[in-house]
């Protein structure tokens, strides 16, 4: 897809990137091994014993959430499409409101190790089928998102050395995947937290420095920045108006709305983010850490907007689109032109570490779900010992990593962004309805949960299979056939209401009589009295 004739960086910055990245990896790997759980305790492996401070947890949440797709993809989007890209950044920030206002505290009060524990507490009679369904949804979401990160690493490498050969490609995916598996399988939650904190600090510092340099370039005059961006975009003032990318027709407008809907709602149900919500010890720590995370994410998004506009203003839209039609190179080109090789190396190292941190969080979330929900509760029916479950969790991390690598090596010509968006859509349409209903709806039943979990998953996957993502357009996976009867690339606008509707339908058709469990659950979710 990416046809790079002139690579972004010169030899010096490539070597510098390599050295920086290697030193970060070595340091974090050592720390992950040092802080790794020593005893066979699942609470330590899954949640790091819940003794993290608010700032640390907030940094880790930010590190878990801001992926390379946000760092490279959305700045590229801003650089290429102006206003529409800025809208996307706004959605990324607003999404945290759903987490803070609706999900965070009730989930934390009633939760234990995984999301499955919360649903099991709410729906005790049929908790095993519900756990199974939830584990399948979790695995689908995390695997898609993991593959997106691994493909992203190849795309990033492409920026440096041009189109990589099959061997380089394989090597890149295998090396990144193996590091991720080591973080997750040996380090557990403490190890993953460390790399995420390091990444978040690097991210905030990196984008802040670059944004300051860009603003200084324009003497802190935002109007001059906007004016230069509009001038160098080649489309004039239209760059700062909506509709450059999504404006075509009513279909593309709906498509964009569908994407924003999935982003705003999907975050609250992403497994690795949910796991972070369970990690603080008390409600107070959780609240402060979510507020920290929101502040950091908001700052990064604002800075990313400045970087995107700056890239267009300084480098020019034509030059960015020539290197990579999707715009992923925008921020690297900007760094090259304002800061030379050193800044380029810093930003690209940051992008690689970002990939690592997000992938480690995802692998850990998938492994917890596999070991705790699927093995511990469904296969062994709650009789597994801690050591046994922990062994399975470590193995599961390796299996998930391997699966991700294999899928990432398939010769799909698919972009990081479309896989990540699909993961968001599935989370919002399958996991979110079950979560919201079980937290807030008295009559929600296990059949409703099963119907919304499986229904939302199948609905969103089917809609994507029959969408332009898979067939009919030159950028599809199968460009030469046409079975795309669903016109939108993002299924959210249909599949999210469908998921909620199915949950309601299942609960109305097959109500249940678990009033005691339901009242207990509600008290627990609000008051937070948790028994061991």
């Amino acid at each position: 897809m990416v046809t790079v004739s002139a690579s972004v960086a010169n030899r010096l910055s490539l070597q510098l990137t390599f050295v920086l990245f290697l030193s970060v990896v070595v340091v974090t790997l050592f720390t992950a091994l040092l802080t790794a759980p020593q005893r066979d305790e699942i609470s330590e492996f899954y949640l790091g014993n819940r003794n993290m401070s608010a700032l640390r947890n907030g940094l880790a949440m930010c590190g878990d959430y801001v992926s390379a797709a946000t760092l490279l993809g959305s700045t590229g989007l801003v650089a290429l499409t102006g206003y529409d890209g800025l809208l996307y950044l706004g959605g990324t920030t607003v999404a945290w409101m759903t987490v803070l206002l609706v999900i965070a505290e009730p989930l934390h009060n009633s939760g234990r190790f995984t999301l499955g524990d919360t649903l099991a507490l709410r729906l005790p009679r049929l908790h095993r089928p519900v756990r199974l369904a939830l584990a399948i949804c979790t695995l689908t979401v995390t695997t898609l998102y993991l593959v997106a990160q691994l493909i992203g690493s190849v795309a990033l490498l492409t920026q440096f050395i041009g189109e990589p050969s099959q061997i380089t490609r394989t090597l890149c995916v295998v090396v990144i995947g193996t590091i991720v598996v080591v973080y997750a399988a040996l380090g557990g939650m403490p190890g993953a937290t460390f790399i995420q904190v390091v990444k978040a600090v690097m991210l905030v510092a990196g984008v802040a420095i670059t944004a300051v340099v860009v603003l200084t370039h324009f003497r802190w005059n935002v109007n001059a920045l906007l004016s230069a961006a509009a001038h160098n975009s080649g489309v004039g003032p239209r760059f700062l108006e909506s509709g450059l990318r999504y404006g075509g027709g009513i279909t593309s407008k709906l498509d964009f709305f569908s994407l924003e809907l999935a982003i705003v709602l999907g975050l609250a149900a992403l497994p690795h983010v949910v796991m972070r919500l369970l990690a603080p010890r008390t409600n107070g720590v959780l609240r402060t850490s979510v507020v920290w995370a929101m502040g950091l994410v908001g700052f990064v998004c604002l800075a990313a907007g400045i970087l995107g506009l700056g890239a267009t203003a300084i480098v020019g839209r034509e030059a960015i689109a020539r290197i990579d039609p999707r715009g992923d190179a925008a921020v690297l080109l900007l760094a090259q032109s304002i800061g030379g090789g050193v800044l380029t190396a810093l930003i690209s190292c940051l992008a690689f570490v970002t990939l690592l941190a997000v992938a480690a969080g995802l692998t850990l979330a998938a492994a917890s779900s596999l070991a705790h929900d699927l093995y511990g509760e469904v296969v062994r029916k709650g009789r597994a010992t801690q050591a046994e479950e922990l062994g399975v969790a470590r193995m599961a991390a390796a299996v998930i990593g391997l699966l991700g690598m294999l899928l990432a090596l398939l010769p799909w010509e698919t972009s990081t962004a479309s896989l990540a968006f699909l993961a968001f859509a599935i989370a919002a349409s399958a996991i979110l309805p079950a979560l919201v209903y079980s937290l807030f709806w008295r009559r929600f039943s296990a059949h409703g949960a099963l119907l919304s979990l499986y229904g939302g998953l199948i609905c969103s996957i089917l809609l994507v299979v029959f969408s332009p993502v898979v067939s009919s357009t030159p950028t599809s996976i199968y460009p030469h056939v046409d079975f795309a009867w669903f016109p939108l690339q993002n299924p959210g606008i249909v599949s999210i209401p469908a998921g909620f509707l199915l949950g309601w339908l299942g609960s109305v058709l097959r109500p249940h009589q678990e009033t005691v469990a339901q009242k207990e659950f509600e008290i627990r979710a609000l008051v937070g009295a948790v028994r061991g």
Partner: protein
Amino acid sequence: MYGYPPQQTNRPPSPAPTADSTRYPSLYEHPEFQSLRRSFRTFGAIAATLVVGGFLLYVLLSSFASRVMNRPLAGHLTLGLALGLAQFAVVAFAVWRYTVHMRRRIDPAARRLRAELGRPEPGRAGRERPRVPQEGRFRAW
């Protein structure tokens, strides 16, 4: 340890007041709990609808009413861009109101009800807690 759900839920609610499970449902009817529940839900629903719904409305307006949104305000700043920046301010304001609301209205009531349950602390699974002070190598900062 993983006998999740807790065994209590499998028992029919017995009149014996010793079991926790019988105290849970009785607390549910407590007027203070009901007002706590109402207060938490009302705030969450209103704030989430306003902020998230407001953002989605802004996205829709940007696509379908681009004429209005592209009206220039000052220099290159259009109404749409200004509203986009305002989203960040709205989020910050909502977060501030939420923390104030929780601190004033929810936390004290939850603490009182917790005391009613005979649980002094909102600690997580009781079995883990005594271990933590011995934990030396992974301190919080």
